[in-house]
């Protein structure tokens, strides 16, 4: 059984209209070559870190990112470009979802374990993350650019919180603003609500 406290979050599904301006502000410059999917990811991750009051992650923390369809838009663009010529290099890099992990690590001036998991659900993503996470905890994100976009992130720290106040939770409840703790009890996801 593993329990984590939610010490920061960004729930943005869809993100606010001014998310690009907010991202530019957080980065100090307009991002110019990373593509919408990664920009949306950076926005959510940096908002979540700010909410947790952390500038960077501890060395033994881990970043886990999931997505239903990931970089499909960048992939379509590159497949179009490929009909007559080589694709543009940056467009090709944008098809690799793990590029976002590198950008996020660079932005936080951090080096450590980060992993992208494709197509599963947030609960399964948390299960993989929790099996590997150390004392530094997890920065967990779920990111898609379909239908207005979704960039949901949680900063999770290991917690000794006990008690019977945990209730069974569906995977999509992970990103409810009402949750203070999450727990994996065997294969079951549980949550503790904010008092």
């Amino acid at each position, binding site marked *: 059984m593993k329990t984590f406290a939610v010490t920061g979050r960004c729930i943005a599904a869809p993100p606010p209209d001014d998310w690009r301006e907010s991202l530019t502000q957080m980065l100090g410059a307009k991002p110019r070559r990373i593509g919408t999917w990664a920009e949306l990811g950076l926005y959510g991750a940096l908002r979540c870190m700010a909410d947790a009051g952390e500038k960077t992650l501890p060395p033994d923390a881990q970043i886990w990112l999931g997505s239903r369809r990931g970089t*499909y838009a960048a*992939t379509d663009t590159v*497949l179009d470009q490929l009909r007559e*010529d080589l694709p543009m*290099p940056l467009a090709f890099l944008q098809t690799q*979802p*793990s590029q976002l992990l*590198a*950008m996020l690590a660079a932005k936080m001036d951090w080096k450590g374990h980060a992993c992208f998991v494709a197509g599963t659900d947030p609960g399964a993503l948390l299960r993989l993350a929790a*099996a590997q996470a150390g004392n530094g905890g997890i920065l967990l994100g779920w990111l898609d650019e379909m239908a207005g976009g979704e960039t949901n992130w949680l900063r999770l720290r290991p917690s000794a919180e006990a008690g019977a106040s945990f209730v069974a939770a569906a995977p999509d409840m992970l990103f409810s603003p009402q949750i203070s703790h999450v727990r994996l009890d065997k294969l079951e996801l549980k949550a503790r609500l904010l008092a």
Partner: protein
Amino acid sequence: MKPVYLSGRGLACALGQDVGTALDVLRRDGVPPSHISLPGMLGGNFPYYAIHSQQSDWNERARELVQRVAAEAGAQQASSGALFIATSSFDIGAVEQGAAKADYRAFAEKIASWLDWSGPVYVISTACTSSLNALIAAQALLDAGEVTEALVLGVELDNRLTLGGFAALQLLSTGNSKPFGATRDGLVLGEAVAALRLSARPAAGWTMLGGANVVDGSQPTGASASAVVSMYQRALEASGLAAEAIDLIKVQAAGSPGNDAVEAQGLREAFQVVPALVSLKAAIGHTMGASGAAEIVLLTACLEQDVWPKYTDETDAALGVALAAAAPGKARRVLATILGFGGSHASVVLERT
């Protein structure tokens, strides 16, 4: 973390469509790459280690290869456990043929159905380190007791997006792959489907002790020496071993002018005495997301049957490290490393028992 046992393995690559054939062909000095033609001024003809197959329908070809490789690894004995699919290109080849749409979940369901898989399915995509990150995740899941069996399946099959992208980044050699070579001039890519079956139940042969992945975003398409050092330190720590305990390292050494030099620098900094080194890139090409699994399958088989890749190109003396001309007398503890896009540096520790 508790060790996990390699209880089965399978491989299809340019050398052959099962481990035995691949090893026989490698023993007889391997195969030359085939070629692929790419459009545009910076396109042209590039060598490519394709899997020999008459089937041109991407889905059908992938199904045949995945089923064959999984069967060789004894996948049916694990099918209620966790399936980890490791890939950087998913089924883009099928998307290019108009036979799929870019959708990760549909891709995962397709592969799971080919294998009649009943357990949980995860798709790990961290570019070239995908298979090693899948192994690391599988070990953790087994350690947590959530499953007792897992299959790591690396899948990297023909598609123009990957080849075109690497060509656009000017990373490809037009000749051959020359790991740590004096005249190395880029990567040669290849196809592979590779499977490693892992079990919490002890089995004779090879054990995975631990592993580590370090993402360093300072170089979008290349490696960093300090991250190489950190990766080796963390992998050894996760395995409870000292650097001196390592007998052999399977390095990345894909023949890239810049990256090979960075990797060599990292090796010299991480190890006071650099262990024997081996690269398999000149035998099967760089098989990207599948490379970690494919090269571990091939390496463990090579060590068991005393087969060793031959390097015909002159080594770059300036690197200060060199590949071993023959297998070390004993290679009990082995590091298998892949460095890749997205600043990802991963290594796992294997022990032969």
